[in-house]
């Protein structure tokens, strides 16, 4: 079942075109990896799904993206869209608030005031992010006091707390140590049954280990998009073949 669908999607930073005619169906309850050399537009594409590119001056989009068959530009209210589509960033970016306040930030801003309900959401989200046991006694401490790996899992928990259906991960493990990375990868595989997950990664091993589908972007163009197995074993495009065998990038 298709969750996200892009149709002839183009994106411009001022005069510079960053994405060219992207046509892509992303499937529900699957992990989709977007790979490609740095600067190829993979983060830009990911940030298109929740319209984070809107924040950058001079960005213009052509074509459209549909989530649940509704256009993200015409049918979705951008705030509603971002609640539906959670995002985890490259660098852990907890707010300078307590762990508790970080997790319930989303539900609180959407107007939930009931203390018990907030507590439930917080506990459940932290458990989902496999962080509960480590922080359950220090919930009132500043999130800044956590380690990098813990901070990133906190950001994941924070994203869960708004009950999204899609989770976007923008090189979410690139700034972490191998142990934290393994933990988060494990977590992502676990989550697949409930969420649609799109990850951007520069690590081909990570893409191969985790994802069901893989897309290769090169110079803003979608070169090949297929089942991960196919991409890594018998790619049909020459560029893909060179890239996955490590001959460039």
């Amino acid at each position: 079942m298709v969750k996200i669908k892009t149709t002839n999607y183009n994106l411009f930073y001022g005069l510079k075109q960053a994405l060219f005619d992207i046509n892509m169906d992303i499937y529900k309850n699957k992990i989709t990896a977007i790979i490609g050399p740095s600067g190829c537009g993979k983060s830009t594409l990911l940030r298109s799904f929740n319209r984070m590119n809107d924040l950058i001056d001079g960005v213009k989009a052509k074509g459209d993206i549909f989530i649940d068959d509704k256009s993200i530009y015409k049918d979705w209210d951008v705030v509603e869209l971002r609640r539906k589509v959670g995002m985890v960033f490259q660098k852990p970016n907890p707010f300078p608030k307590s762990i508790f306040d970080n997790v319930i930030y989303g539900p609180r801003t959407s107007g939930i005031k009931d203390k018990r309900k907030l507590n439930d959401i917080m506990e459940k989200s932290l458990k989902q992010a496999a962080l509960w046991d480590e922080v359950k006694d220090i919930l009132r401490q500043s999130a800044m006091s956590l380690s990098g790996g813990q901070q990133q899992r906190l950001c994941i928990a924070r994203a869960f707390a708004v009950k999204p259906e899609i989770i976007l991960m923008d090189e979410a493990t690139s700034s972490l140590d191998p142990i934290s990375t393994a933990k988060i990868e494990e977590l992502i595989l676990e989550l697949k049954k409930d969420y649609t997950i799109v990850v951007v990664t520069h690590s081909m091993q990570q893409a191969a280990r985790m994802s069901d589908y893989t897309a290769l972007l090169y110079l803003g163009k979608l070169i090949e998009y297929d089942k991960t197995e196919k991409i890594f074993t018998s790619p049909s495009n020459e560029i893909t073949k060179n890239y996955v065998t490590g001959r460039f990038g």
Partner: protein
Amino acid sequence: MNKRNFSQGLNFIIIKISVFVVVAFLFFIIFHIFRNGISSISIDFLTKPPTDSMTRGGIFPAIVGTFCLSIGALIVAVPMGIISAIYLSEYTKGGLFLRILRLGIRNLAGIPSIVFGLFGLALFVIKFGFGSSLLSGSLTLGFLILPTIIAATEEALRGIPQDFREASLALGATKVQTIFKVVLPAALSNIVTGILLSVGRVAGETAPIMFTAAAFYKPALPTSVFDEVMALPYHIYTLATEGTHFEQTLPIQYGTCLVLLALVVLMDIAGIWIRLKARKSKKW
């Protein structure tokens, strides 16, 4: 080689002497005011109005007046300054117009305070008919520090990493929620520092209130915003430049200087301390 080392040593000594001269002068002033002013300070001095054509008695009305003027200026400048800074830093996109605007604000912060006094006289005292009053003085002082507060707040807001804003928006918070729940709280201590330094400045300003608010002698405390008030800096000025009782009132002058100085220095130290604390606990 020896000559070069000698030249370096000599120049470094000159530099160190320069620094010493400036710092020594600062402490000499503070010490001089303190030594001559401390004997005037008493409970009565701080809580009683002046008597005997201001040759005796206390400075209570001036303390109250300075306090009211400072609060008034803050009421004028802080909400407007913070909102303007939010708009400029969070809502405007770069470009020539904004650059010119920032340049304008920076230059407004450099306008002499006496010019603000003239402005306050023409607009608030005369045109709006507020007279020489707490209201006119607060408005004048408020606009005097407005550019400083805008600039300090904008700088504090721009110091907040873009990551925080993105994280908040990505969680489905609106822009306003993002500003009030994430950006402002994170920038708060730097904003407070800017405000405290401005209070120090407002409390010590004389020129802008000379013709907009300050009374030469008015022992009764203000009862409305349309009252003229005494103020510490103006009190010093009038006593020091009034020919007839200069010698006689010298202890009062020193005492008032000491009170004003203590007030201003306290504000500055509080501001600097908050900034220092925030910087130490900051992890982004």
